């Protein structure tokens, strides 16, 4: 091919490292935790040859589901981030900034507080979908969505749903309030296999169209007119991408609360490492997001004896990153 082989080889190395990262992170996380289980014992438990029932339960029913859930949520958020950035042609957006997370959180709180019959992921998807439509609708003028007005619209939508969420918190009975508040902080502390199943279904279903159609993201990111002259049915394809991203994100929010910034940081880091081609970017963002989230969660649960909500860790990393992206004025990673 036209590439010099050295560049090709370096690229391949980077891809392999990113793809291997979540596996390595998961293995490391399995051996770390507040309750000291010796590495040898962890290996024996994994091999199914351990006597101690309590230690087995800690590794297999506390740590393992927590790691899997963190990986799924990290994957969902960063895949959605990469997708939304391409579809909206805006490198500054992610599900958190667009207000999808806040919308989904409001939907969940509503379900917890007042609609006990409705499953959380369903409410999360409905209200989260409403949020993204509202943000895009607000930012659109004359058929165009400008980058800055989309970010502003997202801020407004987020503020709106956060206010609505406060009303729910204010009105709901104190017992339910406690569970809403704890879940909202963004934490995997309550992870179990049931949560993995319920979130996993929505996340995998939402990521599926993105993975299948990912090369089209390249074409769509050129803008509506160019994509149309290249034969892409832009409006139909865009709805599929946004719906998939929204389903993945809202399924994640329903189990983990609001965890911001991952969807912004991971795609940018991957793009800086291996370039903007979505054929690579999507799978690498999935792996990178999973690894990042497992890492952040491991830090959150082992930094102190208390289990710090992981959303705090990602926000601490994400805010400076956003400032860095803005200061760079968008050169390499979004080519203006």
């Amino acid at each position, binding site marked *: *091919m*036209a*590439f*010099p082989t050295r*560049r090709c080889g370096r690229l391949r190395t980077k891809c392999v490292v990113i793809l291997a990262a979540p596996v390595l992170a998961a293995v490391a996380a399995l051996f770390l935790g507040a309750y000291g289980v010796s590495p040898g014992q962890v290996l024996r438990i994994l091999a199914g040859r351990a006597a101690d029932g309590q230690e087995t339960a800690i590794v297999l029913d506390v740590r393992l589901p927590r790691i899997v859930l963190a990986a799924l949520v990290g994957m969902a958020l960063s895949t959605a981030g990469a997708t939304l*950035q*391409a579809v909206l*042609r*805006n*490198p500054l957006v992610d599900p958190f900034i667009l207000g999808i997370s806040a919308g989904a959180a409001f939907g969940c709180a509503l379900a917890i507080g007042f609609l006990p019959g409705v499953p959380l992921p369903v409410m999360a998807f409905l209200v989260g979908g409403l949020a993204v439509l509202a943000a895009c609708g607000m930012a659109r003028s004359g058929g165009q969505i400008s980058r800055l007005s989309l970010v502003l619209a997202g801020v407004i939508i987020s503020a709106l749903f956060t206010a609505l969420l406060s009303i729910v918190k204010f009105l709901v009975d104190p017992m339910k309030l406690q569970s809403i508040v704890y879940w909202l902080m963004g934490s995997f502390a309550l992870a179990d296999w049931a949560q993995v199943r319920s979130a996993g279904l929505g996340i995998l279903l939402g990521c599926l169209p993105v993975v*299948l*159609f*990912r*090369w*089209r993201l*390249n*074409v769509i*990111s*050129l*803008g509506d*007119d*160019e*994509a*149309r*002259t*290249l*034969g*892409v*049915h*832009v409006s139909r*394809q865009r709805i599929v991408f946004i719906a998939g991203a929204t389903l993945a994100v809202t399924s994640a929010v329903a189990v983990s609360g609001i965890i911001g910034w991952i969807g912004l940081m991971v795609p940018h880091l991957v*793009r800086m490492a291996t*370039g*903007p*081609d979505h*054929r690579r970017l999507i799978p690498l963002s999935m792996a990178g997001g999973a690894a990042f989230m497992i890492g952040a969660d491991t830090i959150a649960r082992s930094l102190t004896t208390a289990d710090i909500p992981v959303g705090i860790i990602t926000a601490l990393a994400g805010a400076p990153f956003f400032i860095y992206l803005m200061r760079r004025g968008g*050169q*390499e*990673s*979004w*080519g*203006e």
Partner: protein
Amino acid sequence: MIRVEGVTFRHPQGAAAVLRDVSFAVAPGRLVVLLGPNGSGKTTLLRCLAGLWSPTAGRIVIDGRDLRHLSHRQRAALLAVVPQEHAPAFPYTVQEAVLMGRAPHIRVYAGPSSADRWAARVAMEAVGISALAARPTSRLSGGERQLTLIARTLAQEAPLLLLDEPTSHLDFRNQHRVLALVKRIAAEKALTVVMTLHDPNLAAAFAHQVIMLKDGAILAGGEPETVLTEDRLCRLYDMPMGVLTHAGHRLMFARQP
């Protein structure tokens, strides 16, 4: 074969028609230049030809098929477009950008195959940008970017090529190089080309057929030698113009009042 039949275009909210009863035909293998001042409707006409906008009245027929009845994909297999502004959201490499021309040939859930890669490579070779394959498009000069877009249209393998002011961001030398390249490739591959230009001199040098547009209507159309006269140029640009002929070249200039 393109037939434009009585095309009128009006913006949904606008009262005045941007195009008024425009009709012309382009024979296969011809290079046609649309000339006219800003706001004359050149770009609107090109967007209608590209299928991005639908005429308010009249129709555009390509190879016997009404443009309105074609899907995006069918249209993209017939005509390729070089847009005036190209600002990708991400810095794709030249190779990735050219590969996007294969979109109409690639199934929705698939990515480019090795045959598609080959087509992109051949297209890059044809316009002489193989050495730039791995360069991000954000780091190209205006001329290189234009060549990348032309390579993309070649990879698209459509028999019809539309270019919207392909020379507007180019220096003097590159204007001639790019247009000469387009003309050579069009002749080699028997492509039909329609482009808008600002400079009548470039039209005279490269076009088989010139169509003058003024206030949304056709002022004149035909071979450059017969269309590009002093009288018509004066009316087209609303200013005194002169025409010189020297060694087979036609030189048009604005007369100082």
